């Protein structure tokens, strides 16, 4: 039997690749206009990066990562998303020391997640993303959102809906988490074991944060 592409992967053939090229051109042009510069990071990273950067309790880290030992016994992981790598590189290359902050970066490349494949959800898929690091001006939030909207519009999409929310700062999140835990704690037994673990971790995390706040 002939060998087929692994489940959740696919080939981009001529006829389709022109579409990809056009999108990539639009990305490059738009990022030039908005002054986001391209960054290219490795496709695999130390597993620990995603455990710390994406979060130990997330589905991505717990269930969806392509993790393997290399021949030197290092635990490596095919990147499941782009932000952790970009931030790792920002720190490692001391981009925080550049005179012009925020540092505005973009990337395009394959990401890997072990998920059940369906339309629009593959195990190897390509993400375009941007990161603006080094500013907490609400105007840059709007700029980043506007760049994403503009890319969709520039390829001809019209039926778009932008949904926004605020998750608040650490203090707001903490008091909300406490309220949540207090709300659900009496019936914790009714949750699946995953959710129970998460609830307990939230409790633990908020306790640590509180203690830290006091000792500081």
């Amino acid at each position, binding site marked *: 039997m002939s060998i087929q592409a692994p489940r959740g992967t696919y080939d981009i053939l001529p006829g389709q690749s022109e*579409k990809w090229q056009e999108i990539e051109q639009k990305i490059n042009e738009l990022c030039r206009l908005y002054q986001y510069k391209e960054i290219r990071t490795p496709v695999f990273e130390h597993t620990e990066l995603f455990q*710390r*950067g994406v979060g130990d309790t997330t589905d991505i880290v717990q269930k969806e990562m392509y993790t393997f030992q290399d021949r030197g016994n290092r635990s490596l992981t095919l990147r499941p998303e782009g932000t952790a790598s970009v931030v790792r590189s920002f720190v490692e290359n001391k981009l925080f020391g550049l005179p012009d902050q925020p540092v505005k970066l973009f990337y395009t490349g394959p990401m890997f997640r072990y998920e059940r494949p369906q339309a629009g959800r593959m195990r190897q898929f390509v993400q375009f993303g*941007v990161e603006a*690091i080094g500013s907490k001006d609400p105007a840059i939030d709007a700029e980043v959102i506007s760049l994403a909207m503009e890319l969709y519009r520039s390829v001809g999409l*019209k039926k778009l809906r*932008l949904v926004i*929310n*605020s998750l*608040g700062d650490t203090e707001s999140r903490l008091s909300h988490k406490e309220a949540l835990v207090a709300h659900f704690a009496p019936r914790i037994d009714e949750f699946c074991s995953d959710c129970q673990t998460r609830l307990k971790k939230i409790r633990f995390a908020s306790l640590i944060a509180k203690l830290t706040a006091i000792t500081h």
Partner: protein
Amino acid sequence: MGTAPSLADYLNEDSQAYFDDVKMYLEELGIDYVVDPNLVRGLDYYNHTAFEIMSDAEGFGAITTLCGGGRYNGLVEDLGGPESPGIGFAMSIERLLLALEMEKVEIGQSQNLEVYVIAMDESAKKQAFSLLKDFRSNGISADMDYTGRKLKAQMKSADRKGANYVIVIGETEMESGKAGLKEMATGEQQELLFSEMAETINNKKSLEE
């Protein structure tokens, strides 16, 4: 179980002010938005602004989120750097393509081949091959047959590739050093020296632009 406490009710003054500013700047840019208090991000390090862009196109399956992003104040420190608040988004190109399909938007039309060169025999093939190089180094896309097909099959091939021009080189052409440059759209043919062809095509192209 009763209604779970909503995050919106727990935003402190700073967080609410930040959110109001983001909305003000979006309005300044003329970008419509909907506030959804249930929108959260899957990843741990997000705070303040969270956003998603969804497709409202008909025919989409369960997954209509095209893009997700938000602010992470704290991630850089978690990964060993100094305090550097950030914001970003990620979008899947596969879903973008799916959305284009649902909205029936065509992109990425492949560009027509500019010149197809047909050689009638072996010595003509050498001439054809060097003509290809001449075209290509002058920025003109050019191709020929590499499977030894007959004239008729090669003409068909030129047609399938949507060639703008076809040149046929046989014994006569080799002797005269000239060949006909045939414009496929009009059927017009112009006798030219091999050395004049690239320049002629480029002149015509610049006239069209």
